[in-house]
């Protein structure tokens, strides 16, 4: 078992109000899985991802990554785990704009005190098909290319899990598909992927679907081809309905 989560809670207190962002989540994720987490905004999926990634500490419950309890680690050990075992991919790419693609990819290697950083960063860029653009800066690249650089940065240390937060959210659907293809390839070569998205058409790309509402998991099931077809069709129908409905007339 790669990820074991039991009764995980995260409670924010802001003045008098208490927000139970995560209200007792139980979940196991095996190595090699491709999981998507969906839910409305405010459902707790981002909070959950931050906890999985070691960017935040839970208020209660336990979280084991590779058998190691993450809730009691020191800042140093947590940083090391973020560096070695976890790869982040963000909606807004979060690249450092003043440096080239290869330098961006090399950042985790530097904090990991690795040697031969250039060669390793280059290899990661090759995995996402951007070796020839290694000297370009993010500002000289398209959105899809930037996200591929971000993925290269996430995989450069061969992490056991990639956490992707709305990775296609800022991309057109065609480019989004390319990015998802890369995730499929990474998953095929053994990397566990946790994909957070609110788009059903993206979520169904995974093999397991987790849906969250009000800080709790209400759906956790594997995605069969049939389900995938239905969900996509529903999505399309909903979209079609939205387009065909005479919104303006009603309003007038």
């Amino acid at each position, binding site marked *: 078992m790669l990820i074991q989560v039991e009764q995980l809670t995260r409670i924010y207190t802001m003045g008098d109000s208490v927000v139970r962002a995560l209200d007792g989540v139980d979940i196991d994720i095996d190595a090699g899985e491709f999981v998507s987490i969906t839910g409305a905004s405010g459902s707790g999926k981002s909070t959950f991802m931050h906890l999985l990634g070691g960017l935040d500490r839970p208020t209660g419950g336990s979280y084991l990554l590779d058998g190691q309890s993450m809730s009691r680690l020191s800042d140093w050990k947590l*940083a090391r785990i973020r560096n070695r075992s976890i790869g982040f991919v963000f909606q807004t790419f979060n690249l450092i704009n003043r440096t080239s693609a290869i330098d961006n990819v090399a950042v985790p290697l*530097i904090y990991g005190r690795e040697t031969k950083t250039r060669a390793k960063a280059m290899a990661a860029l090759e995995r996402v098909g951007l070796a020839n653009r290694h000297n370009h800066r993010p500002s000289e690249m398209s959105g899809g290319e930037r996200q591929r650089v971000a993925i290269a940065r996430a995989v450069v240390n061969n992490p056991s899990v990639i956490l992707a937060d709305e990775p296609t959210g800022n991309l057109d659907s065609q480019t989004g598909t390319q990015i998802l293809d890369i995730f499929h390839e990474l998953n095929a070569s053994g990397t566990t992927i946790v994909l957070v998205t609110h788009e059903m058409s993206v979520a169904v790309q995974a093999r397991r679907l987790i849906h969250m509402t009000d800080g709790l998991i209400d759906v956790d099931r594997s995605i069969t081809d049939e389900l995938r077809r239905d969900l996509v069709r529903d999505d399309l129908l909903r979209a079609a309905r939205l387009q065909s409905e005479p919104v303006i007339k009603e309003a007038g």
Partner: protein
Amino acid sequence: MFFLRIVIMSLRALQTNLMRTMLATLGVIIGVSAVVSAMSILSGAEKEVVDKFESMGADQVMIVSGGGRRQSRRIRFDALKREDADAILDDCELIKAVAPEVTQPMQIKYFQKNTNAQVLATTTAYESINDYHVAEGRFITREDDRSERKVCVLGHKAASELFGQVPPVGYRVKIKGLGFTVVGVMEKKGFLGFRNVDSQVIVPLGTGMKRLFGMRFVSMITAQATDQSMLEAAMQQISRTLRSQHKIRAGADDDFNMFTQEQAKKQFGDVTKIFEVVLYSIAGISLVVGAIGIMNIMLVSVTERTREIGVRIAVGARRIDILTQFLIEAAIISLIGGVLGVLVGMAFSDLLEKITQVLTTFTPPAAIVYALVMAGVIGIVSGIYPAVRAARLDPVEALRYE
């Protein structure tokens, strides 16, 4: 290796905002150049004055009129007589030579040519005591002095100003309307004490006192000890001799003052200390201003790069790594300022030397090291607060920051 990479990362970040980096260094540049030019001017002046003191000779003691606690009430300038000099030479066995002297500026004429020179009336011993010798002809003799002969010895520069290429020995010049035969020309020497002896004209003491100045006292007696280590004892002998010469009762104050090269140097050192404190305070204030400038820029930089900091933490940077990076950035800004400040300071003191033509400046290597170390320290100190703020950022918040 890791450290080096952080340094490279910091340099890149600074390079991206070159204009801002330069503005941030400005305060340090001004501060450091103030320190360096202050140090250059001070050590230049000190070196020059010390050189002059050195030229006085460490085995000498200068005796002048005045002294005592009652000095302020009744300043005496006529206490020393030339007989005192003879008495010192006769009675003090630790003194091997004395040269009494009187000096006044006067106009020297040779046909159409005129020059203003310091006329020094002294005795034969002047030559050996000061290790300052004639290049042509001869020096003043005992006989010149006793017979009050109208002869003179020209300083190197005085000779060339009046005579050009012509050897002056044997010609007559006019001092205060009186004809003097030139008997010798001195070697080139430069400064002896605070006096530029090259443009001076030397006449016999007797001649000078009676025929030129009309004075019955001497302004200074230079006495040379038999040995430098005996200088203290020799001064006691001089004191005893002069008190009995001047018939000063026991308990009453001296009517003369003595000083040696050592004492003069020490007194000068005390004066420069005051200047040092004042100059360094000014420099210190401008460095504080520089530090505030760096802190300000670093705070802006941290705020601007909040998201980047979040990303760095997400990919495995420890808080100490973030702290180090921003501290290094601040130190680099400050060091660049330091290096430029040293260059500006050196250029400024050079310029000052050229413009004023009187100041001599000298930048001691220690000042450069001192300035650079100080710049580094200032950078780190002013970088601490911004760096700590960066390191304390919550990564989740930082990644959301717009």
